[in-house]
Structures are given as C-alpha cells and as structure tokens.
C-alpha cells in the first residue's frame, strides 16, 4: 500500500510513564511514518491522552525515548498542530472565529498587533475547513462541529507537518463527524495525522491503522465492515478494528490485510 522509503516521523523506544506513582504506560515501542493516519484507541484511563501529551512534549517519559521528526518533542513542537478536546475551554470566551484561528500564529508572531501576512494565513486556514463566511462570527455562537473545524484551522494556521487530535468527534453528531473526517482525509495527503478516539470497536474508514493503548501499546490493522446492523448503528463510514490481529511496530505493513 505504501512505499517502504517513507520516513519515520514519530518513534517511541521503551517508554515508561507513571503518574503519582502509578504506571500509566509501560514499555511502549511505536513507530509512525510520514503521511499515515493513525487512530489511537483504548479504554478511559488506558493512557491515550498521556501518549499524545508525551508526543507533544507536555510530559516527559520516566524511562525511554520519544523522538518527533528525529528530535526531542520540545524541539519539534512547532511542527505539530494540536486540536484539543472541545470541552476543555470556556465556550463563552469573547472571541471571533478569526481571533481563534490567529491564536495558532501567536507563538511565531512578534509583539503588538498581528501583521497582515498573519491575518492572510489565518484566512487561508479558515478557507481550508470551509468556514470563511464565519470569519467575524462569535466563536461561542457556532455549532459543536463548526467549532471543532475552527480549532483545526487554528492548528493549520502555523503550517504544521503533523496534526494531533484528541477525540475530534466526541461532541458532534454523526454527519458533522463525517464532515470532519473528510477534511482530515484531504489534509492527510500532505501531513501525518494522529487521532485519539473513544470508540474501541470502530474507527472512521479514513484511518489506516490503529494504535491500541491500555498501559501497553499494540498496533492493529483495520478492515472494512459487512454487518448491516453495525452499519445502521454507526453509519457506513467506519472500519472495524481487528484486535485479534497484531501488527509489527510499523503498523502500516499489514493494514491492507
């Protein structure tokens, strides 16, 4: 399915992480290649978000090594675009949609008001999630799915090489969720995408392989679905995670199985 020369963009070697003395992740070995779309699934408390935060450099491993683009995470965090879970911020915060997108560029901008080039970049990012007409709307007045797209635009504004999502569809309905994944599918043509998902049975069909996190990490392939009752339940845009099938660290090698 893919050429073997693809670069490794994330690698974890023998990583342990513990929180308040409790081991959350144990001996994690993982390699993710350029322009893959990876789903990170697992039960609550299994360590999905911890894994994401280790990659983002917000947490340091107790043992082992995390490399992002061949460097320690804190050195490459400017190349990562992060889209947080949509419950974590104040929904009544007084900002416009464009204000939120511009926040993606704040760390790279100088002091004082934004330069015109930054505004133009933010507008382009907004256009890529099809929300240009909401430029001046209040962020608080958008629907859940639209807000999530604004946060994608915020992450895209700084032209990242990788996108990381924490539960992108947790608070949106199925059709808005599919719209989000369509956008992710397009973005996947030019960047690597990691998606944390709360569902351990099924993931969106755009996702090529799945990293299962439950204190330890196992890579599984996905396969398409047949059962009509499951399609009725989840819609037909999903793939089954084959927990029975175990991949090598490079999960993509068997994703076509």
């Amino acid at each position: 399915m893919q050429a073997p020369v693809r670069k490794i963009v994330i690698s974890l070697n023998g990583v342990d992480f513990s929180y308040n003395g409790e081991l959350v992740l144990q001996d994690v070995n993982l390699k993710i290649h350029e322009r893959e779309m990876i789903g990170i699934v697992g039960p609550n408390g299994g360590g999905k978000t911890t894994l994401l935060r280790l990659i983002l450099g917000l947490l340091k491993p107790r043992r082992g090594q995390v490399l992002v683009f061949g460097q320690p995470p804190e050195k490459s965090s400017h190349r990562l675009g992060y889209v947080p879970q949509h419950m974590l911020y104040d929904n009544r915060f007084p900002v416009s949609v464009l204000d939120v997108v511009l926040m993606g560029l704040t760390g790279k901008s100088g002091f004082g008001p934004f330069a015109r080039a930054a505004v133009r970049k933010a507008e382009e990012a907004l256009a890529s999630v099809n929300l240009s007409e909401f430029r001046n709307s209040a962020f608080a007045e958008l629907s859940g799915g639209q807000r999530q797209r604004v946060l994608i635009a915020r992450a895209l504004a700084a032209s990242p090489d990788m996108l990381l999502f924490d539960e992108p569809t947790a608070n949106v309905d199925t059709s808005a969720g599919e719209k989000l994944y369509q956008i992710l599918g397009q973005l996947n043509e030019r960047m690597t995408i990691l998606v944390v998902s709360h569902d351990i049975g099924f993931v969106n069909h755009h996702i090529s392989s799945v990293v299962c996190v439950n204190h330890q990490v196992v890579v599984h392939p996905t396969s398409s679905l047949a059962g009509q009752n499951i399609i009725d339940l989840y819609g037909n845009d999903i793939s089954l995670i084959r927990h029975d099938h175990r991949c090598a660290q490079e999960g993509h090698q068997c994703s076509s199985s």
Partner: protein
Amino acid sequence: MLQFLSDLQQFRFLQYALLTGLMASVACGIIGSYVTVRRITYIAGAIAHCTLGGMGIAGYLNKEQGLTFLSPLAGAVCAALVAALVISYMLHRSTMRLDTILSAVWAIGMAVGIIFISKTGGYNKDLMSYLFGDILMVSDQDLILISVLDLILVGMVFLLYNRLVSISFDEEFARISGIRVDLYNTLFLCLVALTVVLLVQVVGIILVVALLALPAAAAGQMTTRLPAMMLLAIFLCAVSTTGGLVISYGPNLPAGATIVMLAGFLYLGSIFAVKIRRQGAS
C-alpha cells in the same frame, strides 16, 4: 451636581479625584476584562488585601523613621508586586491548592499592615482610608505615579495582547504553540497587581474586586469580542467613578462605596437589558 461642578473648577483635590477615577478606569476596563474571562477575580482580591501590608510598612517608615520619600502608594506598589510574584511562583512551582495560597497571601498581608499601622503614631484614620479608599486625598505625587502605572499597563497590554488572549483562551495550546506561558502569566499577574494598586486609590482595598469585576462583567454581557469588552468596560468604569464622585459629593457620602454601588447598578442594568433584548428578538 451644580455644587460639584462649581467646586470642581475651584478645588484642586476634586480635579485630582476626577482624574484619578478616569485614569484608573482605563486600567480597570482592560485588566478587569482579562481577569473576568480568566475567572481569577480572587487572585486580584488577595493581591488587593496584601497591599495593606505595603502601605502599613511604608507609612511606618515614613512617619516613624523619617523616610519621607516613601509614600503609602509606593509601598502598595511593592507589596502588590511581591504578592503577584509569590502567587505566580507557588502556582507554577508547588502543588499547593490555589485557594490555600491566596488565603495565606490575603491574610498575612493584612496582618503585617495592621501591626505596622498600630505602631505608627499620629491619627489612626489611615486604616479606614486604606480599606475604603480616599479618592479625595490623592496628592500630586500620587497622581504622577498613577499616570506612570497607567502608561506601563496600556503599553504592556498593547504589546502582549495576542499572547495574553491565546493563554487565557487555551493555556495548553498556547504552550504547544511556543508561547512562554509561565513567563507571561507571571507578567500578567504583575499587571493585575498594578491595576489593583490604582483601584485601591479609588475605592479602597475591600471594594477593589467589585470595581474590577462588575464593569467587565456588564461589558461582557453586551459584547462578543475582547477588545470591545475592554472599551465598554473602560466606559462603564469611568461612568461609575465619575458618577459616584458627583453623587457622593453633595450629601457627603463615602465616595468609594458610592462608586461601587453605581457599578453594581450598571451590572444589574446590563443583565436586564440583555434579557429584554433577547425577549424582543424571540
């Protein structure tokens, strides 16, 4: 009202009071809006109460030790900045609960102030004027310091606006996008401290939180972007301080309390205005 206007032309203390109120409103609207959307009014409260320590020590050194260059206002600036740095350090470096830290700063600052004020000779009406404000007693020197503080605040916010908004909205994202969150949070608390000092001059320690929160909360009801919220909050704060001065002057009411009452009415008014507008729209 007429009495106020004719006296305003005549008496310098009244002109100074009016100017102090207007200048404090600028800081109050800008920083109050940040404080409100970040929900940290009680950090401002702790810093405000801690200024009593600084004013007490400065007053003592001034009157008892002959250090006449040390005004209570200068003492308040020092105490507020120390409080901001302590709170910020504890927040970032210790695992203590925020409200424990705030209670400690709040109470210890006041205790230090009370001890030094009790050991300072002369009239002990200082304590009351610190606690409830004495906008009619602002001196030339105070006015200069107040304008300098105002300039620093406006300049800093102009430079740091984008970073502060990004941190206020989503601290974790700000950190990932390369903003030095801890540094700017510390700097921001220092700006809050300076604002608090300005407002202590107007309404006194105990009522600072009201003046910081109420105009910003009223403005927040009626606006959808932070800059608009700040401008409206500045306007409402200026209306409160000027209106409070005018209303309190004739019947000789305490100015600080009258200003806060007016700010409270404006806040209630904004709630009703928004409610009526919503009903009209639906």
